[in-house]
């Protein structure tokens, strides 16, 4: 079958989304007021380490001043990558069509 890989990828991503929605529903129900779920795994590890009395000895040279600016840089990172991937696949595809 020609699109077998695409179908499998679609199913896996769909399953992932459904699992997220189900987990999210139960997490949101049990969440105390003012608490936020879905934090980063690195933050959780930091909590464990800091609860042992450790103080980070070096802080980032520059931190994004807000969540919006941070998401700007993350989207920029994804956009740069996507641009390069799309460009070269297009280049290869049209080169192949020309020969």
């Amino acid at each position, binding site marked *: 079958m020609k699109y077998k890989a695409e179908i499998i*990828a679609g199913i896996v991503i769909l399953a992932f989304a459904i699992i997220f929605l189900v*987990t999210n529903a139960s997490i949101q129900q049990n969440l105390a007021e003012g608490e936020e779920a879905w934090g980063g795994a690195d933050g959780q*590890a*930091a909590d464990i380490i800091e609860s042992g009395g450790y103080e980070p000895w070096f802080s980032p040279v520059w931190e994004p001043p807000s969540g919006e600016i941070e998401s700007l840089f993350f989207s920029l*990172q*994804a956009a740069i*990558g996507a641009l*390069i*991937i799309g460009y070269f696949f297009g280049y290869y595809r049209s080169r192949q069509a020309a020969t």
Partner: protein
Amino acid sequence: MHIMEGFLPSPWWQIWFIVAIPFLVLGLYQLKKLFAEKRETIPLLAVAGAFVFVLSSLKLPSVTGSCSHPTGTGLSAILFGPFITSILALIVLIYQAIFLAHGGLTTLGANVFSMGIAGPVVAYALYMAGKKASLNTFVNVFIAATVADLFTYVVTAGQLALAFPAAEGGVMASFTAFLAIFAITQVPLAIIEGVIIALVFKYIIDVRPDILVKLNVLTQNTVNRIREAAA
């Protein structure tokens, strides 16, 4: 998720730098050779690097109620080997450490080791073993990429455990604790990464099978078989 800035005490952050540097030097050497001898593979190298860029920018929610991101290093490890991949990972990690305060400059050595060296070495070894056992190419790519992603975070957990042994139970106890945070969160993300890399692999076989043969990723026979099956 990488180790945060300042979260590795001395001597650990220096140790991981020292461990990572030989791999990076070898990577630079291989890169130079690739540029000189196989120039037609450079666009593919850009794609593999861009892939690490995209995937490591996507923070995805997982079953554990926290978020983490895939690494995307499996593709380039399979195509170009683990040493060149460590250079690509270094670029991404520096970007994230400088612009995003994600990961860190002092923990760069440790993060390059887990994401750029440990994971890719496993991906490369698994792929080569699967190729030898003539496993289905896509299944092989899927397994290599998935395990590499997961292993990256097992190593991250190990690095933190070594630096922060628990008061009771020592290194093993804190390894289990960090493993629960990093590795379990990573399982579904690793599976997604594996599927997507297998899909991209299919597209590369579609457009430039000759480069894959040239890089010794696939044999001409395998390419012919896959193309026949797809036609």
